């Protein structure tokens, strides 16, 4: 007889512990599931999925994101591997979407192209969003000359139609994806600044903000607590639609030769390089074209859907078709 716990006791206690972990995990899972179910049946989500187009948009965007993340696993070939002997081969089992003028696999290049487009999109939208929010909050909050000066700067940038300015800046900086990113961000922040400033101006007049001010809450805190949450909805909608615009613009500028340089697998560049073979190899130009269209369509649909849910006040605004 000893005090040492027997092996079976130990096993039993381990088993108990495991079981309790399991029970906990199951209850957590159940909780998460019921929360998901509740969210699925909540009003905004119901409203969102009542329109099939919204759901299609979401599915396209998710597909795009997953494709970009898992590109190395999904692509059947190395996107930059050239096989000059297999140039311009039509779709086959080996190359489902054919090969291009350098014998590179079109499908693999499209899959990796999703990475390039999303990366640029997220970077440009992120930078624009950050600058635009900062400028909008400053202008709306400071008012007076600061507001006047900043908004005139916005006016000056908006005086150049569409992507003309981005085109020229990207051209002058020299052809590269980074320069396209810079050019698009220089042009892109203005719309965020306007939206944020408008919200700041209206929120500033609300009773609860004034009350908060009287209680001595600092400005930054008021911005963080009251202003930013109020402006979230319209900004998220704007950013989603902006992704569509940026993807289209990046492809357009790359097509003109100002962006990605071969052999980078970028959709616009693929069309630009493949256009000389339109007669003999239709797949080289048309599959990247389809890819751009679906990506842009996805973000447009998703943005429209989010607007219905998040920003019901906003009238349907027709975005400017840039390039």
């Amino acid at each position, binding site marked *: 007889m000893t005090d040492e716990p027997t092996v079976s006791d130990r096993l039993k206690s381990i088993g108990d512990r495991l079981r309790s972990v399991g029970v906990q995990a199951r209850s957590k899972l159940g909780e998460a599931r019921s929360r998901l179910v509740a969210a699925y049946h909540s009003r905004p989500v119901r409203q969102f999925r009542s329109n099939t187009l919204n759901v299609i948009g979401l599915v396209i965007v998710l597909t795009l994101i997953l494709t970009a993340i898992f590109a190395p696993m999904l692509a059947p070939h190395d996107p930059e591997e050239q096989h000059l002997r297999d140039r311009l081969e039509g779709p086959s089992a080996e190359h489902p979407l054919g090969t291009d003028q350098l014998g590179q696999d079109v499908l693999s290049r499209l899959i990796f192209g999703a990475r390039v487009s999303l990366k640029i999109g997220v970077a440009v939208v992120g930078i624009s969003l950050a600058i635009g929010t900062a400028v909008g909050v400053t202008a709306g909050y400071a008012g007076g000359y600061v507001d006047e000066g900043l908004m005139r700067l916005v006016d000056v940038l908006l005086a150049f139609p569409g992507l003309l300015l981005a*085109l020229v800046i990207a*051209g002058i900086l020299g052809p590269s994806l980074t320069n396209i990113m810079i050019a698009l961000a220089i042009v892109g922040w203005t719309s965020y600044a306007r939206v944020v400033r408008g919200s700041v101006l209206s929120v500033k007049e609300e009773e609860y903000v004034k009350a908060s001010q009287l209680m001595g809450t600092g400005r930054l805190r008021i911005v963080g607590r009251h202003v930013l949450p109020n402006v979230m909805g319209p900004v998220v909608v704007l950013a989603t639609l902006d992704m569509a615009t940026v993807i289209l613009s990046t492809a357009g500028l790359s097509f003109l030769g100002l962006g990605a340089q071969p052999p980078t697998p970028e959709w616009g560049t693929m069309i630009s390089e493949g256009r000389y073979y339109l007669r003999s190899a239709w797949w080289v130009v*048309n599959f990247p*074209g389809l890819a751009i269209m*679906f990506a842009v369509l996805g973000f447009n649909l998703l943005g429209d859907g989010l607007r219905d849910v998040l920003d019901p006040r906003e009238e349907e605004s027709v975005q*400017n078709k840039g390039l």
Partner: protein
Amino acid sequence: MWKYIVRRIISGLAVLLGVSVLTFSLTFFTPGDPARTILRKQMGGRSPSQAAIERFREANGLNDSIPVQYVNWVTDVMQGDLGASYHSETAVTTLIGQNLMPTVELAVAGLAVALVVAIPTGVISAVHKGGRLDYGSQVLALLGLSMPNFWLGYLLMLVFAVQLGVLPTHGFGTFGHLVLPAVTLGTGMAAVITRLLRSSMLEVLDEEYIQTARSKGLKERIVVYKHTLRNALIPVITIVGLQFGYLLNGAVIIEMVFQRPGLGSLLIDAIFARNYPVVQGLVLIVAVVFVVTNLLVDITYRYVDPRISLGGGGE
């Protein structure tokens, strides 16, 4: 009213001043010395001597301080002198004049295509709101918005020029050469106009005078086309007019796809050749036209409909 106009003009002038500064400073984004770049090009790739560079800088005023260069440039611009192309010594204004008509032709034809497609589609969409036709045309409009016009151009070329052989693939001059570029340009615009017209029609259809017209027993067709469409088109046409500046963007790409001459090709060639006077001249003219039209439209709107309060410029 006058107070408004004066205020609006002053803020317009302020914007133009900003535009001129920005346009002028575009050159300073450039890596490398433009004098060296241009001389190298003129000498067929050989490196220019230091003395030649110095002479070029002197002749083109590149040695002055930057504010002096700016003032000189603005003074010249005010007198209608946008400088000369670095490469051909031709005046920039002459180059723009030479390339203006092909682009205007393309823009007008594109707009025509867009209106022919968008007006019936927008009307049908609004009249059958929520129905299948509405759904269908909205999906089409979204596809039109999402389709990159450079791809659409090649797609049309592939079908109508390569496969069917009914139209030329590229070039310029005859009516046949204009069809595919105009359709390419018009598609995106048609999508935008359809969406605008639909929402404008829906708004007008809610107005009391439309209900009055209906209750008088007028035929639905007359109500839709005579009473509603007419009124719904006014804001649409204004916006389309304002968007004309955006056409240059489309022209850059479409002129490249179909190898047409025009302002778009002029710009893209100048960008790649680092021919700054041409780039600056084009950018400046487009921006000035854009700002002035905006101003005129704002003032006219205010004049026509005093209910519209536009607030002090740019709000």
